[in-house]
């Protein structure tokens, strides 16, 4: 298996791996290690008036193949400064292309999407309740 440069960089550095703590952190996970792919995102954001929340930082944990870890790292690393939306910043198909993932691995991107959207959802809920 050969990996694209982008995949390899994010897999081998994985600088956004980890967890966030604090009451303002939203967390969601999807998948399971038993099924081969598990991803968790932690997101911290600040409220921007009535507009959508603005992400300050994000971290991930993942049990998964190099592509899974790379995409999770990429998502978490680029999150800061973006508004929290209930979708991935790039559609699944675009991510697959960007990272040169084999089609058989598409399912893993859906796990990533579930975890990401789940975390944003949790964040928005948290802010609503706040």
């Amino acid at each position, binding site marked *: *298996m050969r*990996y694209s440069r982008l995949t390899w960089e994010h*897999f*081998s550095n*994985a600088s956004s*791996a980890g*967890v966030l703590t604090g009451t303002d952190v939203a967390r969601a*996970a999807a*998948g*399971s*290690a*038993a099924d*081969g*792919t*598990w991803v*968790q995102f932690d997101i911290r954001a600040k409220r921007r008036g009535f507009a959508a929340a603005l992400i300050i930082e994000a971290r991930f*944990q*993942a*049990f*998964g*193949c*190099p592509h*899974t*870890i790379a995409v999770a790292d990429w998502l978490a690393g680029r999150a800061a400064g973006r508004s929290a939306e209930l979708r991935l910043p790039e559609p699944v198909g675009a991510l697959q292309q960007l990272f040169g993932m084999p089609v*058989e691995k598409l399912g893993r991107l859906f796990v990533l999407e579930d975890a990401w959207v789940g975390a944003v959802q949790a964040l928005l809920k948290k802010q609503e309740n706040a």
Partner: protein
Amino acid sequence: MTMPVYLDSAATTPTDPRVAAVMTRILRSADEYGNPASSTHEYGDRASELVDAARERVAASVGATTADVVWTSGATEANNLAIFGVTAYYANQGRHIITARTEHKAVIDPCWELERRGWRVTWLIPGPDGIVAADQVEAALEDDTILVSLMQVNNEIGVIQDTRAIAAVCAQHDGARLHVDAAQSIGKVPVDFGASGADLMSLSAHKAYGPKGVGALLVSQRRGVRLEARQFGGGQERGLRSGTLAPHQLAGMATAFTLASQELPKEAQRIGALRRRLWDGLAALGGVLRNGTEQGTVPQLLNVSFEDVEGEALLASVSELIAVSSGSACTSSSNEPSYVLRALGRSDRLAESSLRFGLGRFTHEADIDQAITAVGNAVKRLRKISGQCATAA
């Protein structure tokens, strides 16, 4: 780029320089390039002498007679010839064969093909140690069983089968011939075809520091084993396997087998110590499971499952430092979890998170230490990335 340390000797081995030297000499020879089938001139005679000499040396190194040796293009062909050749020849005596789920694909796939053609195949499942007990074979024998095909050394976990005990069971059964895939045996366990009680045995050169693309099927003449040919033409190999023979390949195989049997005792010791060092280093990580026992396996192989680590990520993490395999080389291009480890009772998840370390003639202590470091770092890092939750999930 510096190459990673090679630890995949069960997939293939480098050609020993002494083997390469013999082959090179023949490839460059001014008088040994004839066709061994050319009986009308000296070039053919010399080529044919090379073939005879190789036959004698290979036979001697595995306890066979020269008449037992049928050259092939490798163990895949040898297995196919044994399985299809014997079943075709004895088809009127029965249509049942016995093999195991942990065989190499080159045995499993021919058996599947026979099933497709209407044969009954009993697929034995070894115990958690990988051993197929002679009792299991005995229980599986039926009146119309004509072939039992079981390997001697497994290519994924290195477990050594007691093929003599299995041969003894087959000997009680009138008509059940025993085929032993010994592709992984040479240089790792002593091989004595004559004494083994096996009827047929498959060999391959490239697992024992010989060239790729050459092997042999041993067909016991003393035991009167017969089989139908599958490749027809010039009538080479007494009609059992037509096709121009390649003296440089056969001489390479003969040199490799001779060296392997000479160096076996010393190498078993040396490599055994390296394997203990490797296992100790890996075991220290915690959460590692050994597939195969210290005693019942060849020292060249160590197969380990790593808990809480995803297999592909593990392999990718170590790949710049060590060259290992996560399954049989022949199947590792597919991403299925190893069927051998699954047959031994490992979960799909653990089977996928396993590495096969193949040690060999050119493996040294520093290589082992590099492996321990590489795997240790990767496992720790990946466990950190996955956090606690992975286990819980």
